[in-house]
């Protein structure tokens, strides 16, 4: 049973042997570099102090010893927990808590405390392989890249670049995920996406369209300051366990904790009030709360008049949700609703936390906007202790959303307009027309509203729908051909719905390429005998890069061990293919590539810095991030502000927006939209993103502005034109103005430093082109710098909007799930009409809801997380220490429902969904779920409809624990704004197996 450590070339040695001969504490300290600050000092200072002192040295190699101390960041959720790794002779021999991290203070959950197993894993894909007549055959990297590359080029030739679908990853670091998006652009397609689509896409869209940015507004740490906390669709105790440290501290400080969930979760076990909600009734629930708030005049009238637009239309809808109606739809009684509303009203500021229980619905964007409206009505946004604390999922899902592979936008939420492409062409230093020529130029296609557009400007097919890109009749697609090949780099397909159709789609493809540390469910779930490639890919512990936690703090992650076996990091693999496809020189023009083929993470981050003005990813240079990592013990664990030391006054990880250039030294923004602070110190207003007026009404802020602002009222976003009107344009330096003029197309790209003479002609020029250059496109950062010098927010100062006139439901409405157990409510709360094309694929609503399945499939089926596993689970189920703790896929079923079906605890049952997918799993009989609702975890894979697929894994690489993917039984349903999949409310029937 002794665990064997594996080195890169699969040599092994036992842990004890690696520990070497006996050593006492002093030699140990010496070896681990902890006494590097000097033997004389080390002799007299207690360890705790030495430990702090040693930070500055932790990057350097220890003198005379072979134990290295590396600081890494957990790769299993978005809290951003640090961990310390001791590495001896290239082997990760010991894991220690990172007490100095202000985010986790040494704490880890089951996954984080098991990180070292990543360095031991014997379940990895060890070398490139391909499936030949049902057998896995070993290849060299060279062969693999040649073979795959030739086939991709062939498909590109025959069917166009959109016929290859690329999938990036939230588990790639910022540099890797950014290169994934850039790679797709250079290949010539928008058919690239990643799992944020099925995680928080409805949050990003809903929240960004309400107040500007689609991200967590505050932080985990800031929850120490809450007076109330409302969790809806979040089970932090299992999904974000270390967040519970901050949450429980907030509770101990007096915050009232309310949990709303269909299950009495482990988070609910710590709540002051728990309310059981019918799955899919979130909008009704929030309007029910607001009904009491409006009824009692508990809203923050002054805040609303200054900072919120459109709440009157919300009031009209809320009036429909009197307590009886609310209880009818949500199942929550009036008294509980009133009590919760009163708690929120009397304990301000309060925060709201939501996760996938809220987002993964076909009306997900309505849910997220309703949550925002509740917080706006209470005046809770832009305040420490308040906010919308949206807990993201994967370790870098925030970063990958910000800078990485998304099908509807270029990095930094620039969108896909010609202007966006031109911006990125300038940043990448490539010719826009060359870039455009990389795309399919054979035709224009339906962009979604019936108008035709160039493929470059049409969002690609998202993660949730790639199977439809394969299965749909090509005539119904908004692109030239079906998808013929897929390339997955770090995504678990078993986290997606409609398993049986996915299987069919995979079998139809010419080619499946999986670049991943593990084989994944995708490699085994279909009957394919040929045309599947596995490319061994490194974990985040085998590479260097930056990672963005949910609170927008960016942390530098050191490499712990070299890539294991023959694996390569994501970026190195992309570089190989870029070379094969002939665009490596263009793509890596300003990113150096070392002898091992690894693109420099520092150069890549600097390129990210140069382009991401929209969200202020511009100030976080690699140097600043490394300085934060070294001095992380100097940051306060509640405010996240460094007190003294080299980072004095800065917020940990420079949470975006960190405006301007790194030289501007913006401290980062801890709490978004907090106008009690100056912008230069992390204060903000609501973003002026939606123009200046709507239907004749002013939508800029009225009488509210950030501290010390030179404009004491609302104002639009900053452009050169606005600077000129304010007379502030003269404050731009010659260099800045030269760059602005270049971006405006009025002069050549500046090379070297510009003199005042060089730009004299532009100083007083009145030009539309010059005026149009704004805070997002000015590559000098000058416009941002000048705005902030006047303590104004570069993105303007507007009201948040409670209604979104560009979305299908202007006011968020409750609509019954496509598969609902309350079919009687469908006539009153019907879904949308079918849509011809959303992001290239037809999307059905009413034609699905038209059939009542509630008779045959009476149980509401919802899913969620277990603390031991992450996502599709391939990685965590391959970690022995975790796998031992959850060995079987199961379904939670209420005792009443179990008795009705004659089912006993732990018995095998069949769970069948209304689209016919069925899974064989164990029954766990529990009151955790209410009557009529069943719940399964979604991390299992490696089984398909009753069959263990162990024989299909490459020899010995099958995860320790396998089980049915719950999504084999889940069903159709997509949000009309983001194509988020519906996993949290469908139907099923269960019978004894």
């Amino acid at each position, binding site marked *: 049973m002794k665990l064997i450590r594996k080195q890169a070339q699969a040599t092994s040695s036992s842990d004890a042997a690696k520990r070497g001969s006996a050593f006492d*504490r002093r030699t140990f300290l010496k070896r681990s570099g902890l006494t590097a600050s000097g033997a004389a000092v080390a002799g007299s200072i*207690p*360890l*705790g102090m030495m430990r702090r002192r040693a930070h500055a040295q932790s990057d350097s190699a220890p003198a005379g010893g072979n134990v290295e101390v590396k600081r890494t960041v957990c790769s299993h959720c978005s809290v951003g927990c640090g961990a310390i790794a001791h590495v001896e002779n290239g082997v990760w021999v010991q894991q220690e808590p990172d007490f100095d991290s202000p985010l986790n*203070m040494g704490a880890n959950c089951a996954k984080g405390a098991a990180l070292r197993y990543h360095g031991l894993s014997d379940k990895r894909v060890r070398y490139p392989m391909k499936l030949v007549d049902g057998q896995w055959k070993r290849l060299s990297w060279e062969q693999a890249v040649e073979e795959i590359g030739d086939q991709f080029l062939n498909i590109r030739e025959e069917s166009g670049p959109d016929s290859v679908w690329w999938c990036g990853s939230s588990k790639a670091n910022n540099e890797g995920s950014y290169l994934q998006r850039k790679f797709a652009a250079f290949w010539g397609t928008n058919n690239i996406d990643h799992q944020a689509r099925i995680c928080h896409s409805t949050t990003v869209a809903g929240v960004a369209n309400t107040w500007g940015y689609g991200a967590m507004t505050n932080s985990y740490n800031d929850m120490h300051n809450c007076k109330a906390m409302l969790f809806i669709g979040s089970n932090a105790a299992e999904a974000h366990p270390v967040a519970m440290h901050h949450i429980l501290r907030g509770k101990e400080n007096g915050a009232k904790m309310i949990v709303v969930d269909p299950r009495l979760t482990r988070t609910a076990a710590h709540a002051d009030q728990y309310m059981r909600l019918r799955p899919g009734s979130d909008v009704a629930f929030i309007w029910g709360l607001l009904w009491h708030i409006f009824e009692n005049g508990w809203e923050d009238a002054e805040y609303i008049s200054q900072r919120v637009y459109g709440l009157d239309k919300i009031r009209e809808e809320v009036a429909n949700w009197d307590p009886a109606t609310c209880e009818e739809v949500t199942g929550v009684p009036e008294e509980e609703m009133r009590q919760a509303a009163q708690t929120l009203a009397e304990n301000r500021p309060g925060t709201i936390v939501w996760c996938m229980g809220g987002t993964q619905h076909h009306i997900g964007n309505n849910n997220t906007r309703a949550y925002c409206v509740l917080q706006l009505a209470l005046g809770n946004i832009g305040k420490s202790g308040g906010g919308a604390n949206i807990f993201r999922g994967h370790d870098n899902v925030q970063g990958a959303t910000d800078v990485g592979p998304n099908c509807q936008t270029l990095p930094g939420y620039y969108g896909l307009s010609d202007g966006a492409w031109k911006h990125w062409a300038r940043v990448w230093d490539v010719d826009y027309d060359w870039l455009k020529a990389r795309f399919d130029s054979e035709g224009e296609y339906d962009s979604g509203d019936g108008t035709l557009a160039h493929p470059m400007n049409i969002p690609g097919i998202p993660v949730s729908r790639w199977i439809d890109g394969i299965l749909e009749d090509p005539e119904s697609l908004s692109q030239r051909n079906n998808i013929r090949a897929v390339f997955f780099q770090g995504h678990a397909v078993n986290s997606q719905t409609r398993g049986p159709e996915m299987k069919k789609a995979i079998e139809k493809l010419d080619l499946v390429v999986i670049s991943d540390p593990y084989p994944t469910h995708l490699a085994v779930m279909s009957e394919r005998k040929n045309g599947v490639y596995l490319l061994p890919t490194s974990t985040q512990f085998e590479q260097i890069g930056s990672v963005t936690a949910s609170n927008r703090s960016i942390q530098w992650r050191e490499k712990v061990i070299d890539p294991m076996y023959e694996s390569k990091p994501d970026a190195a693999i992309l570089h190989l293919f870029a070379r094969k496809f002939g665009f490596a020189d263009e793509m890596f023009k300003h990113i150096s590539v070392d002898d091992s083929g690894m693109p420099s993470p520092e150069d890549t981050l600097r390129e990210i810095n140069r382009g991401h003005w929209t969200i202020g990813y511009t100030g976080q240079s690699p140097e600043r991030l490394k300085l934060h990592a070294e001095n992380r013990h100097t940051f306060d*664990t509640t405010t996240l502000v460094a007190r003294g030391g080299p980072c004095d006054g800065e917020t940990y990880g420079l949470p975006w927006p960190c405006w301007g250039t790194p030289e501007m030294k913006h401290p980062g923004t801890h709490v978004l939209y907090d106008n009690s602070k100056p912008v230069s110190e992390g204060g903000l207003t609501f973003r002026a993103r939606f123009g200046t007026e709507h239907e004749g009404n002013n939508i800029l802020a009225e009488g509210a502005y950030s501290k010390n602002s030179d404009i004491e009222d609302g104002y639009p976003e900053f452009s050169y034109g606005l600077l000129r009107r304010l007379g502030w344009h003269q404050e731009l330096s010659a260099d800045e103005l030269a760059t602005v003029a270049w971006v405006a197309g009025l002069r050549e790209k500046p090379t070297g430093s510009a003199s005042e003479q060089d730009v004299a002609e532009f100083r007083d020029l009145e030009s539309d082109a010059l005026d149009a250059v704004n805070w997002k496109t000015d590559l000098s950062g000058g416009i941002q710098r000048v705005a902030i010098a006047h303590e104004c927010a570069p993105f303007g100062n507007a009201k948040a909007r409670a209604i979104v006139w560009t979305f299908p439901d202007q006011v968020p409405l409750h609509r019954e799930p496509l598969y609902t157990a309350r079919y009687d409510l469908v006539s009153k709360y019907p879904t949308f009409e079918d849509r011809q094309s959303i992001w290239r694929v037809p999307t059905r609503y009413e034609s699905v809801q038209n059939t009542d399945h509630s008779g045959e499939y009476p149980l509401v089926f919802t899913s969620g997380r277990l603390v031991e596993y992450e996502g599709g689970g391939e990685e965590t189920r391959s970690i022995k220490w975790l796998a031992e703790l959850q060995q079987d896929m199961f379904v939670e079923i209420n005792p009443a429902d179990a008795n009705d079906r004659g089912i006993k605890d732990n018995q095998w049952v069949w769970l069948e969904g209304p689209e016919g997918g069925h899974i064989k799993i164990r029954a766990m009989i529990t009151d955790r779920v209410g009557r009529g609702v069943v719940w399964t975890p979604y991390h299992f894979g490696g089984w398909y409809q009753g069959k263990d697929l162990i024989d299909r894994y490459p020899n010995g690489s099958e995860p320790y624990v396998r089980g049915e993917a719950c999504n084999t039984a889940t069903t159709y349903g997509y949000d009309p704004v983001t194509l988020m999949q519906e996993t949290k409310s469908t139907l099923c029937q269960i019978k004894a197996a």
Partner: protein
Amino acid sequence: MRSRIPHILLLAVGVLLLTACYESSDVTRHEPGVYKGEADPLAKKLENDGELREQLNQRFDGQRDR
């Protein structure tokens, strides 16, 4: 007569053998409740090493909420 000597010898040998069973000096006398295993140098170290003690106390700070 000839046969008595061997009997006495046998008896003597037998007594000696039996005595040997009870009188071996290699056997530890069993005192219930007293540890019988190998010594642990850590026990002594914890007792005498003030620096280790201080180090452990400092280390404990990591478990505070901070």
